[in-house]
């Protein structure tokens, strides 16, 4: 046989071996496991490569001994050295990279609180398991957010699954973490996993995730997973309060609210004040009284008062979330009177007055576009200095049912108490401190706030806390001027909207309130302001000008310019 033909065939076999070897290495990289197929690829590839090299060894030897061969080896070595240096530089720069967010609202930046948690408090690997069976827009946003988490901590790992594209992997995860199709993420450590539902986080219209809410959800799940402090919330029962466990549609219950609290790493328990020997338990972080319908006895009110005044082991006074129900009875004149629960008087001590004179008449509602109920306040509501600004804005004090307003008492015993306004909805996520001591300041602040919100459901309550003991400021106090260990109270005129089924906006409101009470202030609106969507209308008289510029003037300019150059060169 012709020796050249043998050498050519051997070269071909060698090249094939190189390809198979390369394929094996790729397989090894992609599947992350050296299976039998990978081993076969590598072994078979190496054998063929050796055959190819063996039959052509003399030619190869001669080539590399020639001047050209020596240059080639030198060039390959130099290039390899350069590539190595460049890979090292890139590795170092990747490990020490900085991501700078140049958007006006810093919308792609995690809050300081989250960064602090993932940078300083994580000491174990946390895997974020992502459900990729979501809309493309949501997936892109979620990736961006997860990248931010990854960027700040080496302990954050990511796994992805798609139940339709990769059912096997999804089945494994399903067994390990009780996956459901509604889950967006699982935040898992070696021993524990917390799921995050996609429902409340993905905007149904734009199909994009709400950045700050998703960040908040991941933050809470991280806390839950790494066993950080769990706040305990006690729900009072025994006065007609809705059940925390019942799922009956006919009976009022707050089961959804409680389930949500459990998902958010809170621990929840129901207590009856009459059955308590030693007052409210010492581990109580927040006492929740939601929609009682019967009057509290004197000793029960004293227990609540005692809880608010006494410091716990951490030196912190009590926190109360009080939402009063809708209790009216008709008097002999045919007017509806408020049935007192007895807590109203106690609340005056804390600067909160439940004012029956400011009832928003439930009958005075109109339907907006057949969709949303708007509560029309009665005239005296509009005249009150605090609530007047709401009169012309479609903001009600509760989502559904008849409702009352809250106001600071005219003569509060302690004029240094903060009167705060907590609001929340899917778009608003802030506490507005109404600490002006004159009605005009309060009014101005409210007006500023109202100018920011639109005609969407917002929830309003009055919050109370004390300034720092050494604070001499009496006006324009900020959140930093308040004593974090003082008693904190949030009062709601009508808490019927907290009953199941709870709306997303109501849940946000409740979430923000609880976080304020548990001193997790930073979590209230962990994200940035949601950027205003860019939208415009091109005036008709300008539309054709813009189109002329875009489609004719700009492209034709270069043709014209090219023509001049060509003509000048020709002459």
């Amino acid at each position, binding site marked *: 046989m012709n020796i050249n033909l043998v050498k050519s065939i051997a070269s071909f076999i060698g090249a094939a071996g190189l390809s198979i070897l390369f394929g094996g290495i790729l397989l090894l*990289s*992609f599947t*992350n*496991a050296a299976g039998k197929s990978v081993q076969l690829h590598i072994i078979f590839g190496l054998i063929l490569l050796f055959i190819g090299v063996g039959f052509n060894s003399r030619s190869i030897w001669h080539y590399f001994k020639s*001047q050209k061969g020596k*240059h*080639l080896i030198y*060039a390959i070595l*130099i*290039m390899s050295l*350069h590539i190595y240096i*460049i890979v090292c*530089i*890139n590795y170092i*720069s*990747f490990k*020490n*990279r*900085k*991501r*700078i*967010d*140049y*958007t*006006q*609202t810093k919308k*792609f930046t995690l809050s300081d609180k989250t960064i602090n948690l993932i940078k300083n408090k994580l000491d174990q690997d946390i895997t974020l398991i992502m459900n*990729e069976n979501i809309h493309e*827009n949501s997936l*892109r946003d979620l990736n*961006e957010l997860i990248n931010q988490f990854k960027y700040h901590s080496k302990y954050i790992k*990511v796994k*992805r699954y798609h139940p339709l594209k990769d059912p096997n992997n999804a089945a494994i995860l399903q067994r390990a973490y009780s996956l459901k199709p509604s889950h967006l993420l699982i935040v898992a450590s070696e021993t524990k996993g917390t799921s995050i539902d996609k429902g409340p986080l993905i905007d149904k*219209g*734009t199909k*994009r995730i709400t950045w700050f809410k998703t960040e908040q959800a991941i933050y809470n799940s991280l806390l839950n997973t790494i066993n950080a402090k769990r706040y305990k919330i006690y729900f009072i029962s025994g006065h007609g309060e809705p059940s925390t466990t019942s799922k009956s549609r006919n009976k009022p219950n707050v089961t959804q609210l409680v389930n949500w609290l459990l998902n958010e790493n809170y621990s929840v328990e129901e207590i009856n004040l009459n059955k308590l020997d030693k007052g409210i338990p010492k581990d109580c972080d927040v006492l929740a009284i939601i929609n009682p319908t019967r009057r509290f006895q004197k000793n029960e009110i004293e227990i609540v008062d005692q809880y608010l005044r006494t410091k716990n082991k951490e030196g912190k006074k009590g926190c109360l979330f009080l939402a009063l129900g809708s209790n009216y009875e008709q008097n002999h004149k045919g007017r509806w009177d408020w049935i007192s629960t007895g807590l109203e008087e106690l609340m005056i001590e804390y600067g909160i007055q439940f004012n029956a004179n400011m009832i928003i008449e439930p009958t005075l509602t109109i339907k907006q576009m057949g969709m949303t109920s708007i509560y029309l306040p009665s005239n005296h509501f509009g005249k009150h200095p605090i609530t007047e600004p709401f009169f012309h804005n479609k903001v009600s004090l509760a989502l559904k049912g008849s409702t009352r307003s809250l106001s600071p008492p005219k003569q509060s015993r302690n004029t240094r108490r903060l009167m705060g306004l907590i609001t929340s909805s899917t778009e608003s996520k802030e506490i507005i401190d109404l600490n002006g001591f004159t009605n005009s300041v309060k009014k101005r602040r409210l007006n500023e706030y109202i100018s920011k919100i639109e005609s969407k459901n917002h929830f309003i309550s009055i919050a109370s806390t004390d300034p720092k003991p050494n604070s001499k400021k009496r006006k324009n106090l900020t959140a930093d001027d308040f004593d974090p260990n003082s008693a904190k109270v949030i009062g709601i005129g009508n808490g019927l909207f907290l009953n199941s089924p709870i709306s997303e906006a109501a849940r946000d409101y409740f979430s923000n309130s609880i976080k304020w009470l548990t001193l997790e202030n930073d979590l209230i609106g962990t994200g940035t302001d949601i*950027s205003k*969507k*860019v*939208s*415009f*209308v*091109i005036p008709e008289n*300008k539309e054709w000008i*813009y*189109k002329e*510029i*875009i*489609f004719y003037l*700009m*492209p*034709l*300019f*270069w*043709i014209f*310019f*090219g023509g001049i*150059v*060509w003509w000048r*060169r020709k002459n």
Partner: protein
Amino acid sequence: MIAIYAIAKKELQSYFYSPIAYVVMTVFLIITGILFNTTLESFQSEFTPDHEPMEVIYGSSFWITQLILIPTITMRLFSEDKRTGYIEVLLSAPVKDYEVVLGKYFGASIYYIILWLPTWIYVYILFQLTTPDIGPILTGFLGVILIGLFFTSIGLLASALTKNQVISSVICFCIIAIIFSIGKLKEKVENETLSTIFQQVSLLDHSLDFSKGIIDTSYIIYYISVIVLSLFATVRILESRKWS
């Protein structure tokens, strides 16, 4: 330095003396014009998009223009000189190989930047209509320039490999397509390190980040290092003619 400047100037002149420069510019402005007009219309509709207005041109559709522009700009850099034999004249002149490479690279890069400058008229129109966030526009434009310079260096390398302009442009086109689409592989691989590498190498993700208003320092280092590597490899290829 003077040699680099002279070669860059000559290269830039040769772009503007040839009709292809104007054809490329016109086609480019028609494509970006269509994209911009679509953007304007989408922001007037009831369901306005959530992204920044210039994100389409500087981000999500940026790869379309790159695939067309870069091979067209770079294919003739060395291939043409090799085919006509002018390269021998150039390299026998008292200039160093690296000066020739840098001169040609700067010439092509300046032409690329000139190509993108008219898109600021779109930004001006946008400011007439609304007040967009200037941050993402500036970072988006920076991304366009940096990624363009990155690909220009690769195009220059492809051009040095062959004397056939078509082959040179095909090589360049393939490399750009691979680098843009390699990010898709990150979803396929199980190995997390490899997935991170793919994500880091993929320029589609980079251009989206820039157009959203995010600057990642590691991207910039990556571009600079690949530009240096490509230019170095081009110099070695030019030197290889002396080997035999």
